[in-house]
């Protein structure tokens, strides 16, 4: 089945989200749709899946114009969308989730779960999607949940599958498995649209690439001949520097020393198990690992947000095992939390308020019991500008900024003061190329100024690119250490260690 978008335009008020978009989607082909956050990818796909109706232009299926009144029409026409955020009922089984809304029934509306199970198995066998139809969703890892979403779409007889940022939540291993599934679907004649801003992935999986910028298709690429640099320039609109600029490695005295640290989670399980390491001044230590291997708890313990069970943490030789977040902040520890929306910013606060979230009490920003708002505003405007936080004004609500600008706001708050240790957790997750480039350069600037930098990331490329030393965490322990300065950058060995294979 072929789908064609012809001159699609969608406006929201004065904002033109899509402007005369032309796109061809063909059966048996993976179309990679590349674009930064806010380029209009989602708007376009929401029109294709019937959620929005276009202001201008038309959608043609096999050459015939169609009009979707709602998502139901698009599904009936064979277009299915796999959302970035899954829409599954956690306490239902796989089979129950797949048939939800189109349940097979026997007489008297009796739910025929056996038929559902059988149909789910058939789809699994056809496309090589391994899932047990009787597993509860809540017990399944994210990668498998995504398979369930795909089965759901296939169950509704979709011939066109739109995959919205499908790898954002997956581990490197899961991405490999996912690509196998995508290829199997393509070979079975399905048309796939793979939406992402990750260049490496799109070059690997796509048969054809379209680049969207500011609501318009700005170029097409052939994955066999295009280079990442060309595509990135098309996507961002200017040349992008991929290689992280690093000054010479000049480590100093240890800033952070962790000795035999153990941390328990809420269920009293030991999720960080006797971990020891140092971070030296002027050094970037990267902690690699699949998410959920104790990294989050380790960072919380280091930043005073979680009390450790045993072991010690020393900052510049002082014992800070029991220090509060505010004590550590005052000593010069910056913390960029892993989830900016949950714990980095307050979306209903202004940019200015967010800029002083952890320093409002300081003498610079207050007199007596009162916050000195003029001083706060001056400072916020200065650093919003310096850290390239793009906002119409500092009185804008932080929730109205794009993800990249929200993260730059967090980075501005944490790095705009005198720091000695920077702890950054997933500093660029979900960000566009331009923002990633910028945040990396800021972290490197901190290193050049002699800060110790500790980075936790599940993006192996990020860890490899930034770190002087790489620690791999698996099941709460540091299972491998790699010196990245001596030129040994064995990606495969790091990846194996992440999967728990002894290095």
């Amino acid at each position, binding site marked *: 089945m072929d789908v064609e978008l012809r001159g699609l335009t969608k406006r929201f008020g004065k*904002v033109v989200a899509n402007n005369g978009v032309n796109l061809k989607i063909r059966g048996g082909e993976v179309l990679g749709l590349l674009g930064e956050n806010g380029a209009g990818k989602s708007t376009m796909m929401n029109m294709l899946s019937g959620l*929005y109706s276009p202001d201008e232009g038309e959608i043609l299926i096999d050459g015939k114009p169609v009009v979707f009144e709602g998502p139901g029409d698009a599904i009936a026409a064979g277009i299915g969308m796999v959302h970035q955020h899954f829409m599954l009922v956690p306490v239902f089984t796989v089979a129950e989730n797949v048939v939800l809304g189109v349940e097979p029934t026997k007489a008297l509306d009796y739910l025929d779960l056996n038929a559902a199970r059988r149909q789910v198995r058939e789809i699994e066998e056809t496309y090589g999607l391994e899932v047990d139809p009787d597993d509860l969703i809540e017990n399944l890892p994210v990668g498998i949940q995504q398979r369930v979403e795909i089965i759901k779409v296939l169950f509704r007889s979709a011939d066109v599958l739109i995959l919205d940022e499908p790898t954002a939540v997956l581990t490197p291993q899961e991405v490999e498995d996912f690509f196998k599934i995508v290829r199997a679907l393509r070979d079975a004649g399905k048309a796939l649209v793979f939406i992402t801003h990750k260049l490496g992935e799109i070059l690997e999986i796509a048969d054809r690439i379209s680049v969207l910028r500011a609501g318009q298709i700005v170029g097409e690429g052939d994955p066999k001949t295009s280079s990442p640099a060309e595509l990135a320039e098309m996507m961002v609109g200017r040349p992008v520097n991929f290689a992280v600029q690093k000054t010479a490695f000049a480590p100093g005295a240890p800033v952070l020393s962790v000795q035999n640290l153990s941390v328990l989670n809420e269920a009293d399980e030991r999720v960080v198990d006797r971990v020891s390491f140092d971070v030296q001044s002027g050094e970037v230590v990267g902690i690699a690992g699949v998410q959920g291997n104790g990294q989050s708890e380790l960072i919380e313990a280091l930043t005073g947000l979680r009390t450790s069970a045993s072991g010690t943490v020393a900052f510049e030789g002082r014992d800070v095992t029991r220090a*509060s977040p505010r004590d550590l902040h005052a000593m010069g520890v910056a913390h960029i939390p892993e989830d900016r929306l949950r714990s980095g910013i307050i979306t209903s606060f202004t940019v200015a308020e967010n800029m002083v979230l952890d320093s409002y009490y300081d003498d610079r920003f207050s007199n007596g019991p009162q916050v000195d708002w003029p001083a706060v505003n*001056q400072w916020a405007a200065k650093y919003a500008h310096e850290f390239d936080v793009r*906002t119409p*004004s500092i009185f804008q609500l932080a929730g109205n900024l794009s993800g990249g600008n929200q993260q730059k706001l967090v980075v501005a708050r944490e790095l705009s003061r005198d720091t000695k240790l920077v702890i950054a957790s997933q500093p660029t997750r979900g960000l566009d190329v331009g923002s990633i480039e910028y945040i990396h350069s800021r972290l490197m600037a901190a290193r050049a100024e002699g800060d110790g930098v500790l980075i936790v990331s599940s993006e192996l490329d990020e860890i490899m690119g930034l770190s002087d030393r790489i620690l791999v965490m698996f099941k709460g322990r540091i299972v491998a250490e790699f010196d990245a300065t001596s030129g040994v950058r064995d990606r495969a060995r790091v990846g194996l260690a992440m999967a728990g294979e002894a290095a």
Partner: protein
Amino acid sequence: MTDRVNINEEIQKLMVRSVRGRSEFEDLVVVPVFAVIVALFLGALTMLATGVDLPTIGRSFVALAVGSVGSLNAISETLTAAAPLTLAGLGLAIGFRTGLFNIGAEGQLLMGGLAAVIFGFSFPNLPFLVLMPMCLVAGALVGALYAAIAGFLKATTGAHEVISTIMLNLISFRLLDYMLRLDWIQKEGRADPISKSVPDNAELPRLLEFLDPNLRLHAGIFLVIAAVFFVHWLLFKSKIGFEFRASGENPDAARYAGIRSSLIIVAAMATAGAFAGLAGANQVLGVLDRASPGFSAAIGFDAIAVALLGRSHPYGVALAGLLFGALEAGGRQMQVDAGVSIDLIGIIQALIIVFIAAPLLVRAIFPWGFRKQGSNGGGEA
């Protein structure tokens, strides 16, 4: 040099406050106004459904207007009724901003009021300028302590404040009944549970007695005005207010920023309780002259509606307090003039809250009152 100038210009540009948007205006003004109109209209339909004829309905709405703003006495009654609602509403607004749904204003108000009465009749010989403020302080302090119990329970054990404040309300009702029968509190020679009277030099003086001895407006109104500005300062200018709001909007981010959430919970509950206690003291020192069972007259519950209607903003709370005060004063007149039950006022108040709580419903009823929203602008919930 020119670069330097450009950078400064760009920084200055970031500091320009944009004009309040249309959507904010709609949220803060248009929705509440429409909510009141729809509620009054549905109130009329309710009357019609209960067999009241049209002329009586007309008369009752005239009475509502006359009784609330139609005369000096009406305005005095409106303000007198608005005062405790606003005070308690301000306290609740502080709680809501901190993410605490405090249902306990009623109990805090009773405890605070009782404390003010006891303090008043215990030191009848102190001069007015000492005794009256001390009574207010006693009311605020005891209200704060009573609310802090719920805050402490939440901070230490995670007990939800909705449950614990409801229970504390129940405890306060019975505690009041019990205390009103104690020898040293109960009025001499009375068998029913009623407290001794507050001495004259502890009372909030009436302001318009020189015009007409029946005008009940008292000096508590100055307290209310001061409280409105104080709460505005507290929430939006002070450090502790910043901590309150940060903890309320995103407790995780506040904790990550080094704000001690358990302290904030106790402090916010205590502040909320202090205002409820003040409302109670305002009632006994300005209107009632003594404590009797249930003297709070559900002010603490109505204040929840006032705080919600005022969008937890001190100025909004003041306006909502005035509206509810007017409805109460006008409702009494309605009962007298048109013989319509005062329960109807309760229905109208409830309807207003329903429509405020559901702005999308109001938008659906009055589509022409609002700018058309794009598909991306539906973030009302």
